[in-house]
């Protein structure tokens, strides 16, 4: 092997992946800072600035041609830049929302922000991976940070339980993923996604077993049925603003990676059936169980399972339109979910811990906190998929391609389950605005004030949701990632 050229492209690679490198380095800086100046005031702002810088840099590069860095291990530009922008945006909004929340529950510790930066690093590596090794490294970096963030409130038994549950099940899912990678590598002799299909040869059975196991790992991360059991418990136990981050950024990364795997390594249509059945189960079970929930966070957890089902419909279409629709849906979903969990986090300050907050305890809150409650109206209508909000366009963007690919039955089930979901989303609004406040829960003397920054984030999410619904250019952007042949840009 010729080693003289080993470092010839390193400088250029670091420049094109600057947001990734910077996020990791700033995470380390926060760790050192926290070691010497415990819980320093500036820590969240360092994290926020880093994420904002990454967000701006990636947004400017969405239009750029897609390419690869670090010897084809990572993808940059185009779709990769879009996914990274999603992750950075989600992280930035979360940091701003989480700071006052964590202060109020007495867990404002510097490590949280370092962990968010490290998790973002892992998500970027996962979401832009071009090789199975990178997928695994990103997957693990992300997961380990999320396990710790889940169990942040160590003194709370529920939080510890959910963290342990998440860790054990997550470690098990990682085992499946790793076994799948081993079998896929064994069948093809390559770790690069774009080389797999031509290298399979006569090892089809081994390759398919590998892909099946790999899918289990991914479906666990995106909480698709039947690998969804951890979701409600983890979302219930974890600190609420961080749940918003976990449910959006980690899904964006895992779905982006899954799209790359399906698009680059499995261009044949033989996986449509599998993904379609999983999508069907996820939509039906997620939406139906959500109907019976009385705890707000559990309800939103099942709702996020259902939304994973909608995104899987786009993936099941197996066409570039389906993939671009799914990518667009991820953006809409990120905006809606960060907003919804943000509102719930802010409403927790009436003294009810988030893990126990039932819908009843929030009755009549619409007249006491009109800004939050009206924002929630937009998020709920968006999640239910009402026009003219982004949620509607997102559903059109994933169900349409499915019909084009001959999966009309799946689209029909999708639309029916969305209609079912309207019941539990609108029930939140009924409780907020049309019920007398519960005398057992003292909402009469709410004294908490909403911090300006958090309110700004919520309003920003509302505006984004409306813009996504009426400005159609975003769909063109995601569609452009699949223009021509993405494979053609590879060496």
């Amino acid at each position, binding site marked *: 092997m*010729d*080693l*003289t050229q*080993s*470092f010839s492209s*390193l400088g250029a690679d670091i420049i094109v992946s600057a947001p990734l490198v910077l996020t990791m380095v700033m995470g*380390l800086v926060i760790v*050192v800072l*926290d*070691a010497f100046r415990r819980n320093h005031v500036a820590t969240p702002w360092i994290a926020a600035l880093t994420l904002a810088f990454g967000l701006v840099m990636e947004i400017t590069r969405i239009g750029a041609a897609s390419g690869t860095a670090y010897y084809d291990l990572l993808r940059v530009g185009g779709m990769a830049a879009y996914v990274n922008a999603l992750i950075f945006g989600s992280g930035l909004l979360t940091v701003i929302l989480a700071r006052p929340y964590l202060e109020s529950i007495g867990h404002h510790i510097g490590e949280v922000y370092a962990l968010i930066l490290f998790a973002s690093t892992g998500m970027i590596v996962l979401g832009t991976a071009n090789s199975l090794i990178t997928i695994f490294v990103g997957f693990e970096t992300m997961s380990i940070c999320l396990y710790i963030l889940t169990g942040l409130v160590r003194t709370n038994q529920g939080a510890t339980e959910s963290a342990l549950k998440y860790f054990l099940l997550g470690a098990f899912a990682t085992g499946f993923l790793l076994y799948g990678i081993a079998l896929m590598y064994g069948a093809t002799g390559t770790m690069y996604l774009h080389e797999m299909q031509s290298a399979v040869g006569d090892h089809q059975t081994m390759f398919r077993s590998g892909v099946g196991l790999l899918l289990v790992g991914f479906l666990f991360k995106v909480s698709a049925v039947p690998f969804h059991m951890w979701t409600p418990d983890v979302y219930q136990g974890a600190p609420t603003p961080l749940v918003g981050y976990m449910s959006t950024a980690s899904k964006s990364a895992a779905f982006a990676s899954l799209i790359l795997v399906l698009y680059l390594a499995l261009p044949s249509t033989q996986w449509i059936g599998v993904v379609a059945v999983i999508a069907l189960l996820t939509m039906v079970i997620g939406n139906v169980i959500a109907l019976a929930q009385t705890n707000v966070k559990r309800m939103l957890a099942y709702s996020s399972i259902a939304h994973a089902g909608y995104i899987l419909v786009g993936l099941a279409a197996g066409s570039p339109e389906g993939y671009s629709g799914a990518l667009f849906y991820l953006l809409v979903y990120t905006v809606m979910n960060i907003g919804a969990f943000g509102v719930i986090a802010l409403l927790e300050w009436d003294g009810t811990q988030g893990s126990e907050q039932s819908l009843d305890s929030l009755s009549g809150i619409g007249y006491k906190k009109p800004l939050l409650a009206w924002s929630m109206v937009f998020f709920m209508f968006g999640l239910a998929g009402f026009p003219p909000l982004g949620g509607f366009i997102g559903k059109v963007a994933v169900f349409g391609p499915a019909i084009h690919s001959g999966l009309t039955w799946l689209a029909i089930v999708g639309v029916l389950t969305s209609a079912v979901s309207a019941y539990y989303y609108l029930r939140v609004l009924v409780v907020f605005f049309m019920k007398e406040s519960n005398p057992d829960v003292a909402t009469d003397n709410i004294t908490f004030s909403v911090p300006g920054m958090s309110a700004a984030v919520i309003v920003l999410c509302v505006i984004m949701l409306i813009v996504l619904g009426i400005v159609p250019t975003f769909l063109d952007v995601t569609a452009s990632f699949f223009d021509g042949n993405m494979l053609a840009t590879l060496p």
Partner: protein
Amino acid sequence: MLAEYGPFFIQLGLAIVLAFAFLKGAALLGPSRPNRIKQMPYESGMDPIGTARTRYSVKFYLVAMIFIVFDVEVVFLYPWAASFERFLDAGVGLEVLGVVTIFVIILAVGLVYDIKKGGLEFD
């Protein structure tokens, strides 16, 4: 084929012989003044009396975890050191040294964090 492994078996044999030699040598040459405390199982460790289900400090795990981190660091450094000459021949020695320095710095950050947070303080 088997002959290629000759040095390995020689090393294995040497290791076994040396281990026994040290043990026996210490017993023969060192002073031996046993008392009750010294003869307890796990000398200087936990008191082996009472139930096995007592609470004890979580610091044991911290030390174990830190050990594993630096153990893995050494495992990574061995192949690097073994192939360093080939990188030197190719004229990229400085760059490779830089990369490994970054790796060690990242682990050192972990150690600094650990010490400052009191992970190695027993009380």
